[in-house]
């Protein structure tokens, strides 16, 4: 079973901190891989401007791939402003075909509306990914978005952190998500490693998604660009979150109602039972069957945690105003925010979604039985 950790804090911190949190939970994973997603990024030697710049993350496995990437980005009109160089200790990296880890900052292209830009960024990411696949997988692209850095590598998390020199404080972030373990249900593949990313939305999951195939088939059938890949059964959680919030325009609280709707008897007594029953019917192909704990972040640095309807996976959230942590185990939370009141740690049950808003003042614990705050639902 994999272990997850997320920390969100007002003051940017080193991703290495989260890796030590992972180490506290080391008995729960086999250390076959690490996935990291950073948001609210700051570089030691570069002033990154979120409003004006976007970040590309990935791996070039050969020099040709690296040069091709350079060329392709230029051709597509992206102007590079900064190239982050990790101090790589190659001896600690298991895989031997890593020519260059890519974290590069580009200037946002001008004259595009937000929507056009978001579309353009995703299309570019998909194009690069496809290009890599066409060249014998010599190029892996994780994310291309403003303010998001994604790092994925095979190996024991702490060792990967050492290999990339993540403890040198050259890169920091306000939100860091980490998952320890490669996807093991299907083949080992860097794309199959959590967290999954689409248009600023990222999730990682602890567990297995039994309803994967029907959900995947439905999402693919929607023909929405970006709903592809699916090397991992957990990738659909990110896409469902994207679909619910971006395509359907529903609030974050609706996510849980889509993936784990309440039973008919429960909805009969719910203040918006009628709407929710209709939503359940319309979205019934997106019902997940767990067991899963889903941890996600949104572009505005909101963090969330939700459980499947059986609550068969562990997850705890704890912290204090200004710094919060979500982890699979209490020791993980303890390692990430030691100066909190542990008696206030919270373990969500099947009906809960825990939301940490961007202000990070307090947790919102939202229950599915609560009134739904949606004008059209009233």
């Amino acid at each position, binding site marked *: 079973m994999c272990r997850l950790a997320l920390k969100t804090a007002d003051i940017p911190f080193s991703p290495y901190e989260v890796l030590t949190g992972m180490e506290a939970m080391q008995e729960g994973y086999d250390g076959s891989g690490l996935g990291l997603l950073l948001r609210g990024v700051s570089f030691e030697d570069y002033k990154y401007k979120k409003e004006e710049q976007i970040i590309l993350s990935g791996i070039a496995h050969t020099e040709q791939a690296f040069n091709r990437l350079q060329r392709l980005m230029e051709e597509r009109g992206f102007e590079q402003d900064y190239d982050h160089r990790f101090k790589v200790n190659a001896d600690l990296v298991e895989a031997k075909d890593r020519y260059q880890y890519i974290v590069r900052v580009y200037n946002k292209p001008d004259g595009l509306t937000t929507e056009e830009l978001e579309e353009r960024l995703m299309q570019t990411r998909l194009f690069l990914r496809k290009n890599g696949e066409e060249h014998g997988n010599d190029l892996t692209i994780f994310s291309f978005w403003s303010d998001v850095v994604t790092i994925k590598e095979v190996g024991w998390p702490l060792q990967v952190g050492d290999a990339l020199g993540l403890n040198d404080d050259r890169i920091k972030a306000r939100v860091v998500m980490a998952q320890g373990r490669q996807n093991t249900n299907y083949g080992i593949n860097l794309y199959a490693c959590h967290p999954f990313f689409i248009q600023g939305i990222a999730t990682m999951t602890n567990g297995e998604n039994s*309803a994967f*195939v*029907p959900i995947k088939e*439905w999402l693919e059938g929607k023909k929405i660009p970006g709903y592809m890949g699916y090397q991992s059964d957990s990738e659909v959680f990110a896409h469902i979150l994207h679909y619910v919030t971006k395509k359907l325009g529903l609030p974050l609280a609706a996510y849980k109602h889509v993936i*784990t709707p309440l*039973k008919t008897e429960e909805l009969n007594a719910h203040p918006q039972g009628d709407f929710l029953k209709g*939503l359940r019917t319309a979205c019934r192909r997106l019902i997940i069957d767990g*067991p899963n704990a889903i941890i996600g972040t949104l572009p505005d640095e909101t963090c969330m945690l939700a459980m499947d309807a059986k609550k068969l996976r562990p997850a705890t959230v704890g912290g204090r105003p200004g710094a919060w942590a979500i982890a699979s185990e209490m020791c993980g939370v303890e390692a990430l925010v030691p100066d909190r009141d542990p008696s206030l740690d919270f373990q969500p049950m099947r009906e809960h979604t825990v939301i940490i808003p961007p202000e990070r003042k307090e947790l919102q614990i939202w229950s599915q039985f609560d009134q739904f705050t949606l004008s059209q639902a009233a």
Partner: protein
Amino acid sequence: MVSVRSVYTQPSSLTYSDLPWIIEHREDRCTLCGQCTAVCPKQAIYLTYRRQRVPKLDILKKKRGNDYRHFVGIRQNTEVDKMCIGCGMCSSVCPNEAIGPVPNQNEHRSRFHMDQKGDSWKRGGRRNAPGKTILDRISFGRISMLTDPALDAGRHEFSTNTILGRVLPPEEFLRRKASGEWIPPTREIFPFVIGSMSFGALSPNMWLGLLQGVAYCNEVLGIPVVMATGEGGCPPWVLKSPFLKYIILQIASGYFGWDEIIRAIPDMQCDPAAIEIKYGQGAKPGDGGLLMWFKVSKLIARLRGVPEGVDLPSPPVHQTLYSIEESVMKMIQTMSMAFNFRVPVYPKISGSTSAKSVLNNLVRNPYAGALLIDGIDGGTGAAYNVSMDATGHPIASNLRECYQELVAQGRQNEIPLFAAGGVGKNGNVTQNGMALIMLGASGVHIGKYIMQACAGCLGNEMGRCNVCNVGICPKGITSQNEKLFRRLDPDDVAQRVADTFSSIKTEMKKIMAPLGRSQSLPIGMSDALGIDDADAAKRLGIKYAC
């Protein structure tokens, strides 16, 4: 001495050893109580007088002579229309275990003579195809031993219901909800539906038993079972009762019984579960329904608005409708409107190569509530032997193709697909049904299984019984003759309906738990399926497992 030439034979003279079932009668045990001959609905056996010559030799009188003894015996009829059907009612009533049918191991000469008076052989619906079906061979194999704790079928909560009715794409649902537009009606039902068997095909006691059982499942056990009526209407008291909500009313090409239904609309306390428009039947595509005259009793005649004792064939097609597009437009919309757009309306078609085109038509019609596809193994009414055995499409691949068509369009389950035709044919009802669900069905219809499990129907695929069409059902299930249907106690049927659905539900959990599914029915979860036949696996798009 009788000369050989005077033995009277005609072209279709048969001996009892030419028939599929041979009565074994042990005269040494028989007390000639006459119960067997009285109970036999086929008159396949009869009590008869025989004369036996008793040779007499009086030695003292030095005279030889004959004497004759008369006695009563039981004999088997050798006429084709009275041949034994192997139902075994005789043995079940015999107090002395003196009689019973045995299957004839020889070939059946009677097959060559079943077309007497120029009429081809018709039977109650069972295809002459014994043995495992493709559905029986599917196994459920996606059991995660890696990270998934197996669920406990006994303790976890499982949601085993399905949706009947048009499901909108989420975007469209939200748009219509916001603007207050019409949202197609849906029903949450149990995925095993009692399929269409008409009031006419079934005896009043059987119908009452089923209805009671269904009501019990819904109201006491909380299993939302629904049953379909088949063509021929619905008893008026049911139409005006609160039980109507458990009933799918069928309208077929003969429109039998619909006068009554339409007239009852103002008095209905609730809406029916759905309206099923029958375009075709799996067991006899190209044939309409056929209620043979034997079963058109006074009650049935009144309900259907026809004279007593006449054959009631429905046309094979809806005579007023030229094409499926037109059918969809006219019938589905009209029926929706008749019930004020509050009731799902869906067509039932025979499994066929055109099923996909029909489906695509329905997908584009906002009023179509579902599609029921009936495969070749289905059917309980009167059907020509040749249709049942040789015309039609097996359900598994047909359904799968249709589902995959929807998947390709990203519209799976918007039109819920229901499958029928041989589900539970060999008794594996839950396994068969769940296999179809994982192949993409939202639910299945079962008919024969219900007759067998809940009413003790004796018919099988090897020519046992299957006289449902001629109204002499030895169990009283499909007979309108009150001497026969009084044999069936509706309360007992109801009890068995409740038993059957409770155990189907338990078995569903036993299948869902190891797959880790509990929150929703595993519709389209084809990664869980395996079959021991590489070609079938390829055709169905599932794993080959051996």
